[in-house]
């Protein structure tokens, strides 16, 4: 970690609400920025396995024309790969031209022949440029070749609105990836979970897409110093409560937590479930919480049609129908592209007030 603060010890598993399977009790750690936890994890995994390499646009930030040395001008998009090219060299921190289908396809080929590529796709919206390689090659090779091979690759990109990046740089279409058999999707929500999920993704033998919401990247939170992994497919409780369940994913888990804090002031005790993984996803934690609270709001920044929110609602309808005291509600973006104007963009994204309002309506208060 790059923060200068002294190491503190934090009880991760028994900390109120933070019940994710993790590194154990009383782990030493620091409050760090999300981006630094991400960068440190890349560094850990590059050290851990010589077959791991990173490929993407601008990740080593230009080259000196005379010496051919990489310049690391930006530290990679959102500083994700800052300082890595100096320590690991341009073969392992491989700058790619703006050629998403080409370099994602090359990463699949490298994974099929024994390497463990990690691909930086910059903005989540660029997924669609490489979608065929992701869907037809990365996700299907193992199945259509009868289990002869595996595709141990990791992809990551920045999603979400809130930064004025407008319609083509602000998508959150998780469901377009979670829909694909053969691909896994994880959505960390703080420095602690990005550390554990990124390490788990890189060590996983299947293709995994990790989505970083842009609103999380400069947030600070506790993170253990030592490397650890969080099992793919496990959600966690961010807060326990009896009155209603709020389900979040990526940044909407933060939104749910903020909404729960507001609701607590009004005497409403909400439970917050942070999904962390979208494929596979933790059906058990959803069902367990809904059986307890009998009411649920799913909060998703993606547009609503065929979204993860819809998928979770379907699972609840199928497996916890008898426990519901109210219809399942979804708070999502509208069925529109993400607008540029700050006021419109804010209205597009689920806000804590939207969640609070929905809860009040459901409880009739």
């Amino acid at each position: 970690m790059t923060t200068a603060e002294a190491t503190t010890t934090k009880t991760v598993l028994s900390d109120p609400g933070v019940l994710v399977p993790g590194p154990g009790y009383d782990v030493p750690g620091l409050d760090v920025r999300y981006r630094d936890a991400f960068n440190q994890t890349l560094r850990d995994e590059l050290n851990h396995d010589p077959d791991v390499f990173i490929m993407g646009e601008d990740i080593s930030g230009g080259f000196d024309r005379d010496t051919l040395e990489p310049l690391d001008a930006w530290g990679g998009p959102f500083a994700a790969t800052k300082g890595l090219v100096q320590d690991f060299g341009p073969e392992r921190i491989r700058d790619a031209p703006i050629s998403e289908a080409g370099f994602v396809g090359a990463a699949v080929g490298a994974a099929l022949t024994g390497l463990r590529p990690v691909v930086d796709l910059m903005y989540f919206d660029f997924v669609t440029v490489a979608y065929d390689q992701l869907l037809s090659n990365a996700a299907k090779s193992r199945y259509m070749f009868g289990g002869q091979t595996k595709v141990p690759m990791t992809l990551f990109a920045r999603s979400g609105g809130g930064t004025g990046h407008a319609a083509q740089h602000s998508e959150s279409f998780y469901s377009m990836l979670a829909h694909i058999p053969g691909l896994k999707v994880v959505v960390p929500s703080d420095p602690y979970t990005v550390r554990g999920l990124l390490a788990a993704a890189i060590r996983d033998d299947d293709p995994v897409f990790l989505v970083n919401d842009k609103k999380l990247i400069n947030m600070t939170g506790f993170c253990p110093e030592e490397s650890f992994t969080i099992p793919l497919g496990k959600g966690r409780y961010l807060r326990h409560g009896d009155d209603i369940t709020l389900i979040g994913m990526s940044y909407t888990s933060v939104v749910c937590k903020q909404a729960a804090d507001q609701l607590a002031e009004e005497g409403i005790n909400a439970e917050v479930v942070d999904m962390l993984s979208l494929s596979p996803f933790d059906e058990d934690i959803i069902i367990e919480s809904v059986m307890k609270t009998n009411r649920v709001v799913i909060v998703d920044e993606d547009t609503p049609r065929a979204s993860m929110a819809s998928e979770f609602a379907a699972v609840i309808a199928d497996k916890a129908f008898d426990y519901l005291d109210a219809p399942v509600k979804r708070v999502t973006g509208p069925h529109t592209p993400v607008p540029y104007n700050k006021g419109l963009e804010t209205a597009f994204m689920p806000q804590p007030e939207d969640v609070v309002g929905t809860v009040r309506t459901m409880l009739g208060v």
Partner: protein
Amino acid sequence: MRISREKLRWLYETMYRIRRFEETMLEQTFRGNAMGVTHPSDGQEAVPTGICAHLTEKDWIGSTHRGHGHCIAKGLDTKAMMAEIMGRYTGQCKGKGGSMHIADFSKGMLGANAIVGASVPLAVGAALTAKYRGNEDQSIGVSFFGDGATSQGVVHESMNLAAIWKLPVIFACENNQYAEATPAWYAVSTDDISARADSYGIPGVQVDGMDVFAVYEAAGQAVERARAGDGPTLLELKTYRYHGHFHADDPKKYRKPDEEEEYAERDCLQNFEKVVIQQQAMTADQLQEIRDEIEQEMQEAVEFALNSPMPPMEELYSDVYVEYSNPLVGLR
């Protein structure tokens, strides 16, 4: 150009094996024994044969929907191939891939691919692995694709990547002059696809893809260049498919008879036989012996496939992931 007798025999045997495999496979398709569409490559045998003659099992090839010839030239077992086409458990992919997805990673075959152009970056990725490992085993990647794929963006992206990273890869464009029913003269902006190599700063060579000796010679130079670390080459191999785009397609609907006759006269097997007999490199008896052996092999392949079991129903759910914690059945 000198070719050893052993290699000569291999060239003929491989081309004839591909020819007879395609004819036998088509016959089985029409009998209803294949479980889906098949895309025969007969007519084009000289291309995969002349190229793969230079490769070992450590080299990787990417292939297309018309991939049986590539598979055979890379050493895949014809029994398992026939079984795969018949959807049997004994196929290379346990009957789950079929004709358009035959793969054998133990032989360096990255899989036939049914998205036109989509396997090209895979061969580039295999070459990237070779370079990443310091070219320790001098392995290379070869990407087979058709004239149709040259209109796909990812093919151009792949060539640019391979050129800037100087990767050991060969782009083998099998120009059989038709993308499905659409002629290359209509769909491709140039009649010299190999000239596009100039725009990536790599060598491009146009080769008579009906002549296995010409293919063998051009591929030899490209392979040598790749193994020496000098980067990629684009080969354009002018060839012709004798059958339609897929088994039930009648190419007479979109090709002229004189064109078909012209290529029939340039047949790679007949041309080979004429040359080796003229030059007394092989005898007619030797050639006949090879043909008889292959005939036997094809009969055995069909029998093996027809007598092979279907995949068990559990196979529907296996091989999607290495590990996955959710059930794969839908909500029921």
